[in-house]
């Protein structure tokens, strides 16, 4: 016992000395998503290129991470040198002057190579405030074998009506096959990401040009009714607690006929090591309702540097490395092209090797089809496809998500949920001073 403790203390002391000998240690806060975990395994390359920089990782679950990072940057706590943040935070934080501009990254970084749709969302007044690590839109993933069994063919650009028809035909509850899996877990980044994107294709919007909430309109009612209809009839049990991860697990086990979710999921569901249905997955664009907008979102996880960081140069070196073309090539070499962080660079999609990946083109098309500045049919006063880029949205979005989640769980009706959503959004917008 004493021996082990002494050995442990010794090890710690050696560790401390080792870090003291090198120049700088930067702390990187990140999400526990697959691509970030993979990056942590590839750090040898970075250390080789930058022997004078040590990287400490803080890896947390998405919601915990967001809360920690936001608290830290807003109070200027200075605990992190590199933050992993979403496209929702970047414009808000950039405007506050909380992030370091990345305009001066070296020429070989080739910032112009970043996909325009993604880059626009990260640029405020000409300053690039974050570098995308991976980008995503949403699309339909479906089981080719079940679709065939049902005697249907998935069009490349399906409608919601077709989705419903296919879901009905694929559902086989006896054998635990559910026609459709969708997010139901409450959260602005969970069920509301899906529902807001879906609502866009139904012509619904969060706010009109005077910031009046629109949940009392017909478009939202149609969205929610169709969603509940789909999920109650053809969805898996317990869907009100299913987020991205839960649905991913269900799909990988062959329990979903279709799943409309993030394009990054494509590499997981086609990975034979984890997925039992790896060779039976097809892809299609997110559905529409014939109104000119599709129900797909746009998101990217980005690396940014807080303005308070004392180690901006080291942090920049890290950001440039992690989001570079070389990093993509490195992952391709180590883990194969299918596992490269997707959706950030034009050059990646021009690469003939990458074009062989089954979901490459569908991902690019989906990303290009989303327009954060004109997310829905009518004009809106906000930016963001599946979110509204105002600071209050996290709270409002999650509270509304709770209502819709309750509707899915069956504890309230769709009408009640919409009514509560309308009321609480009005209340919060009044409190925040957007409306009188």
């Amino acid at each position, binding site marked *: 016992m004493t021996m082990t403790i002494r050995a442990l203390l010794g090890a710690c002391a050696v560790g401390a000395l080792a870090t003291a000998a090198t120049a700088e240690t930067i702390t990187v806060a990140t999400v526990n998503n697959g691509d970030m975990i993979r990056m942590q395994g590839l750090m040898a390359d970075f250390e080789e290129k930058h022997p004078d920089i040590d990287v400490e990782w803080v890896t947390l679950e998405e919601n915990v991470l967001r809360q920690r990072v936001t608290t830290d940057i807003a109070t200027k706590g200075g605990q992190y040198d590199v933050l992993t943040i979403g496209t929702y935070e970047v414009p808000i934080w950039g405007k506050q002057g909380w992030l370091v501009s990345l305009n001066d990254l070296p020429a070989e970084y080739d910032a112009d190579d970043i996909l325009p749709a993604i880059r626009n969302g990260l640029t405020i007044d000409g300053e690039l405030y974050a570098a995308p690590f991976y980008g995503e839109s949403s699309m339909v993933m479906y089981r080719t074998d079940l679709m065939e069994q049902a005697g249907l063919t998935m069009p490349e650009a399906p409608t919601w009506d077709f989705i419903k028809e296919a879901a009905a035909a694929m559902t086989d509850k006896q054998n635990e096959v559910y026609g459709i899996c969708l997010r139901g877990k409450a959260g602005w980044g969970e069920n509301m990401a899906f529902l807001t994107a879906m609502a866009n294709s139904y012509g619904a919007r969060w706010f009109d040009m005077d910031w009046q909430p629109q949940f009392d309109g017909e478009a939202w009612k149609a969205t929610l009714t169709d969603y509940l209809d789909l999920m109650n009839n053809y969805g898996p049990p317990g869907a009100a607690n299913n987020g991205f*991860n839960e649905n991913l697990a269900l799909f990988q086990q062959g329990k979903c006929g279709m799943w409309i979710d993030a394009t990054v999921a494509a590499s997981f569901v086609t990975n034979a090591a984890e997925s039992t249905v790896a060779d039976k997955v097809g892809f299609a664009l997110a559905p529409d309702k014939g109104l000119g907008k599709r129900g797909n979102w746009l998101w990217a996880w980005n690396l940014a540097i807080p303005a308070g960081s004392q180690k901006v140069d080291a942090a920049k070196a890290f950001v440039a490395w992690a989001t570079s073309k070389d990093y993509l090539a490195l992952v391709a070499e180590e883990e194969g092209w299918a596992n490269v962080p997707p959706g950030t660079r034009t050059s990646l999609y021009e690469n003939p090797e990458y074009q062989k990946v089954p979901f490459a083109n569908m991902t690019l098309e989906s990303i290009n089809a989303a327009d954060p500045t004109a997310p829905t049919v009518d004009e809106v006063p906000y930016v963001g496809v599946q979110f509204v880029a105002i600071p209050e949205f996290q709270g409002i979005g999650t509270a509304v998500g709770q209502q819709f989640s309750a509707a899915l769980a069956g504890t309230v009706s769709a009408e009640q949920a919409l009514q509560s959503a309308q009321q609480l959004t009005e209340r919060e917008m009044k409190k925040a001073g957007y409306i009188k």
Partner: protein
Amino acid sequence: MARAASPRRRAVTTVIAWAVGLAIFFPILWIVILSFKSEGDAIRPPLQVLTSAWTTHTYAEVQERSDYFRHFMNSVIISFGSTLAALAIAIPAAWSMAFVPGRRTKDLLMWMLSTKMLPAVGVLVPIYLIFRDTGLLDTRTGLVIVLTMINLPIVVWMLYTYFKEIPSEILEAARMDGAGLRDELLYVLTPMAVPGIASTLLLNVILAWNEAFWTLNLTASKAAPLTAFIASYSSPEGLFYAKLSAASTLAIAPILILGWFSQKQLVRGLTFGAVK
């Protein structure tokens, strides 16, 4: 208490008691089992889980991803550090309350307990700001301070109840013999209160070890204890039951083992003055 019992009755009791005990313990047993399975096997129906292949691969993966020992050492330092600090402050206070009680001692004690009812989430921002300004963010010292303060009321109360059980005549006798206050505390009171202090220490280490709000919110990497280690395994992408089980097992094993080894002390001392 050795009451006579017929062998038959003893057998029946044995069966019931074991069944209940195993049922209560089962969730822990189950995660230990799952931690030795592959991700694909861990989500199978229970019987298939049991018959599938055993592997230690998951542990290797967890260790490769996050440095377990660093988190472990932080947990040890923080929980023992805060406990010792709380004891150092609480022993004199409890002595004073037990042996020189004033009119307001009871009120004081209750007030101390009521400070524990302050909802942590409500005061996070103020504390965060104070920590930022004093440079205590992400330091073990900072966490030791917070956890000391959080658990101090419980420590004072536990010690108070033990001290009260010590007949004050003994202390007075020591005083008669010319022992000073320091001697009285160190050589008379403390040895007599050792069982009580030991169980206070144990309970407090457990509480500090498992504290997951402050330890998660006030640390980043350097001082992050096992609660932060667990937070990186909750709902990641893809299948995660095996990894979560392995990480959970690693996080709770040390305190579970400590608790089991010292359960006699813990049980004997865990009365809060409930037993007279």
